[in-house]
């Protein structure tokens, strides 16, 4: 699921930048041809409306899996302020532990939860952009058409920022990449549930 999502995100961002270039929101921001997907506008659009199926279907499967197996509840909650402060303090003193890859610290929990919510918002704003008339009730929640574009753009920006941190940190902790490629470490979490007994870290 993770790597399917990685491919989908790659397609969506690259083609989205191509589409953006046709009518920029910010005069100072054009994405260079070298980093966009599709030489012409129609190719960018074709990729975007192909990638959306991968992103949405994979995303729905991921959410259903996370909720059904209670993985989200176990991995992402509870988030405590005290733990958050402790994690930040540890990180600043370079004392962050990575011994147990199956356990997320408070900062990870907040970032992963946040990026899931951003992922949901980018789909909803995308739907409103694609069908502002058929789904006019949804589009109305955002305000004007250009507001929907801006929300969609800001969600993309948040995902790009997340990816920069996400990839940089994964490279700093190479054992996490090994886990991702192999299907994850054998989980010894207590209490052990059926879901956690199978390798899931790459999900």
């Amino acid at each position: 699921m993770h790597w399917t999502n990685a491919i989908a995100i790659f397609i969506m961002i690259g083609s989205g930048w191509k589409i953006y270039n046709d009518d920029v929101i910010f005069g100072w921001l054009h994405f260079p041809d070298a980093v966009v997907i599709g030489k012409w506008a129609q190719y960018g659009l074709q990729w975007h409306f192909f990638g959306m199926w991968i992103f949405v279907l994979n995303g729905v499967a991921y959410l259903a899996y996370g909720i059904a197996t209670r993985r989200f509840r176990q991995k992402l909650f509870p988030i405590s302020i005290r733990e958050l402060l402790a994690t930040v303090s540890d990180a600043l003193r370079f004392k962050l532990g990575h011994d147990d890859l199956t356990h997320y610290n408070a900062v990870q929990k907040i970032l992963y939860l946040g990026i899931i919510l951003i992922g949901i918002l980018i789909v909803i704003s995308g739907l409103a952009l694609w069908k502002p008339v058929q789904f006019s009730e949804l589009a109305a929640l955002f305000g004007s058409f250009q507001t929907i574009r801006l929300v969609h753009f800001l969600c993309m920006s948040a995902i790009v920022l997340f990816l920069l941190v996400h990839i940089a940190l994964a490279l700093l902790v190479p054992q996490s990449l090994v886990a991702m490629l192999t299907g994850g470490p054998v989980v010894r979490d207590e209490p052990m549930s059926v879901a956690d007994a199978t390798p899931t870290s790459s999900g």
Partner: protein
Amino acid sequence: MLAANRELIETINRRNVLRGAISLGALTLLTGCDVSEEEPVQKALRAVSSWNDRVQATIFRPDHLAPTFDVSQVVRPPRFNAHFDIEDVKPVDGATWKLELAGLVADKRPWTAQQIYQLPEQEIIIRHICVEGWDYIGQWSGPNLRSFFERIGADLSAKYVYFHCADDYTESIDMATALHPQTILATRYANEAITDPFGFPLRLRTSTKLGYKNAKWVKAIEVTNTFTETFWSEQGFNWFAGI
């Protein structure tokens, strides 16, 4: 850790997925050699685009009205868009112009501009959305297409309506959109005759399609069950282009 998992790593095909993703990325990033243009890739992308046409037809709500706006929000003049620059617009002579009818239509007698002006008019103040991302609010009036079709005895069960234009542009829409209450043959903008760059004397204006589906300088309307590619769909843009 790597050693412990080596055997596993070698059998995992996730690696191939990753390799595939990286190759795809590398291919796409090669400038001047766009993988989208490769025949099998373009074929697959167009197949998805056709699938998206069907999805859009399914979610289309035939009686759902697009939001309308106040006359104070209308942009004057409208924003120009075509496959050429505004300086290259070739004006149509309204005195000699006729609207031809073709295909599954009972009464194929052509219409002069004066005859069309005498038909009952409908005004819609709607948002124009371009595939590029910009939009503006426009005030269009002219005969309702459904009423016009009933008047000329068009086959309302046909699949497509084609618009052939003076600039050799061709666009087509599905019948459900043609029969939508906010689809008109616009002859006026903001209560004045539409000016040359915006499709004088007659253009299509529908509230449920992207800008490029709204053919300008229409000279013939054809009702048919046969699908042929249109100006933009031929170049790879989505045909249905619903909003």
